[in-house]
């Protein structure tokens, strides 16, 4: 089970509180996590990555295991600690104004 931490505004939209737990089929990558997230919470489509290009929105970052993975390939395997659920995959808003 993958653990995912969303920013508060996206938790409000998805009507969840706390971490999101997801089953991810196949290799655990940024893409497979977000695919699983958007399948379960369709209204989050377009809020983390573009509807068409699937590129990460500019003011969001992806962190895990105390590393910024935002610029890694979306298909690169994530650390084993994320895949095993020991560490969360974190979607976080960049600091950019009020």
């Amino acid at each position, binding site marked *: 089970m993958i653990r995912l931490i969303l*920013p508060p*505004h*996206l938790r409000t*939209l*998805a*009507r*969840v509180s706390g971490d999101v737990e997801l089953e991810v089929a196949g290799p655990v990558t940024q893409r497979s996590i977000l695919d699983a997230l958007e399948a*379960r*919470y*369709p*209204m*989050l*489509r*377009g*809020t*983390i990555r573009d*509807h*068409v290009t699937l590129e990460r*929105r500019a*003011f*969001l970052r992806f962190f895990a295991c105390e590393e910024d993975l935002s610029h890694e390939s979306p298909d690169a395997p994530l650390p084993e600690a994320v895949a095993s659920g020991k560490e969360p995959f974190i979607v976080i*808003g*960049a600091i*950019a*104004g009020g």
Partner: protein
Amino acid sequence: MSMVRVLVGTRKGAFVLTADGKREKWEVSGPHFAGWEIYHLKGSAADPNRIYASQSSGWFGQIIQRSDDGGKTWQQPGTPPGEVVEAAGPPKAVSNKFVYDTTAESGKPLTTHQWYDGTQHPWEFKRVWHLEPSLTDPDTVYAGVEDAAIFRSTDGGQNWQELSGLRGHGTGPEWQPGAGGMCLHTIILDPSNPQRMFIAISAAGAFRTDDGGKTWKPINRGLKSQYIPDPNAEIGHCVHHIAMNPKRPDVLFMQKHWDVMRSDNAGDNWTEVSGNLPTDFGFVIDVHAHEPETIYVVPIKSDGEHFVPDGKLRVFRSRTGGNEWEALTKGLPQKDCYVNVLRDAMAVDSLDKCGVYFGTSGGQVYCSADAGDSWNPIVRDLPAVLSVEVQTLT
């Protein structure tokens, strides 16, 4: 007993202000969608309990919200009210997919537009500036977006289809963003002709369709803009807002970047009616609900100083369709006031004494229950106001 419901979009959420027909005692609800930019909310004339809202954020993009109970509760269209996937579960569907139509069947190729430095820049969707519900069908609503285009939903805001004839009009490479972005901010539906719509884009100008949105014609003849070298330019004008009295749909009033204009032939020609205004820069313009020659503007000092001149917040009213203007000041601050009033932040109700409303960048929303003769603040300390709409409920 008549009621009014004022829908206020701000930089940090939406607010709903309600009062009876006297418009003296107000109830304030909100913030709805706290922390998000609400560029616009508007209710359906066909079903006043149906309200659409544009919720957006630089971080998370565009969301469409809908209320079916007059703004008490909201949902992302696609999830039936009260129905969820699981307890406290998420909405079932996407309602924020605004994708330019480039299909061979109905679309137009995605071109480029002018950037601030004169180079060409790709068309990129950023947000919905304005939502215009159909006059007859609560499930049909139009969206004006940045980068400029118009979309339509016929299923209550869940699925959106671009009316690509506008973006594909052919002049797109000459359109350019104003300071706020290249936004389609004004959509006016002609109540006498369902095939006719007017839209305005900063900075491309005004356009009209006479075939329900398939094809569009620029309607900018008579506009003069000092930042365009060609004095007869068809395209490139920074139209800030257009207003129409629904009872006289061929007469349009425009607040341009500079200049207040009117057209008596559905936009085919425009003449300047700035007259004795202290400055003819501004954003809002609106028309009295019952007197089609009575119009309102809020002059702003200049394009470089976006606040009211002389520290005085003054609405100017013309009872002659322009040229002759009077300052309306009773109840408005006349000292040390430096707010702006943005393009969608004025509205009128249709009660017997026409009510006029506007919101400021300082978070005040003012109401006049006597057509502008006197004003009272409904609220003083909201976040910066982006839009004001009013519903008259009977």
